[in-house]
């Protein structure tokens, strides 16, 4: 009989709010404190908490390591994609102003895109690191 009821129920209640808070930090990053890196770390923290309470096996069922590795690469692709996208539209690398007809809107879209790339990469790398360390076994000597 598992007696970690308080931890399990607490994690169950809090996990969705942690994920929502990560997105809040993400989209708040355009106007105030916050941004992709912090949001990615918070997003990853939700999965780390889940893995700590429910066990690594269950966490890997929810988010296989392959997906985490893919996220780490996908974010870089999004970031560089925004950069080359603005080059393709006639600006410099990461010149957001050319992304829309109105430079102001272009700046907005560009920042959202780049921050999304940062979020996905940081999330993927953080979870991959956690899996790598948590999956290690003690060497018996």
């Amino acid at each position, binding site marked *: 009989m598992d007696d970690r009821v*308080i*931890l399990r129920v*607490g994690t169950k209640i*809090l996990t969705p709010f942690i994920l929502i808070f990560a997105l809040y930090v993400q989209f708040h990053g355009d106007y105030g404190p916050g941004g992709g890196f912090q949001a990615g770390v918070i997003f990853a923290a939700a999965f780390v908490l889940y893995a700590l309470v429910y066990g690594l096996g269950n966490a890997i069922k929810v988010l296989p390591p392959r997906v985490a590795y893919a996220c780490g690469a996908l974010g870089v692709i999004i970031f560089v994609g925004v950069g080359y996208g603005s080059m393709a539209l006639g600006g410099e690398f990461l010149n957001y102003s050319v992304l829309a007809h109105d430079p102001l809107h272009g700046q907005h879209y560009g920042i959202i895109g780049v921050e999304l790339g940062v979020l996905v990469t940081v999330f993927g790398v953080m979870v991959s690191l956690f899996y790598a360390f948590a999956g290690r076994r003690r060497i018996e000597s």
Partner: protein
Amino acid sequence: MDVLLGALSWIAIVGGVFFMLVGTFGVLRMPDVYTRLHAAGMTDTMGAGLVLLGMAFHTVGDMLHGETTYWLVLVRLVLIYGFLLLTSPIATHALARAGLAGGVKPWTNGEERA
């Protein structure tokens, strides 16, 4: 009304700081893990709660001065307090469990202080 809200705000914030101070002394002075956890847990719920209450009084004062959108700040303060009330005891509980699982014996009266 201004004076009343300001006074309430200050009383709550100073009270919160007092609880945090007591909690810090407790963490430094208590004899073992579990008693220290008791002090540390109080810092989060009581101390931070009172500081948030003081901020809420201050925000209400600002709202009376025509800052009509500040009710959003109030909602955020209530949310922060709610999550603090959930997470802090759970964290304390987890630490105490980990201590017990790790074989730390609770300190009893009369024993030598670690």
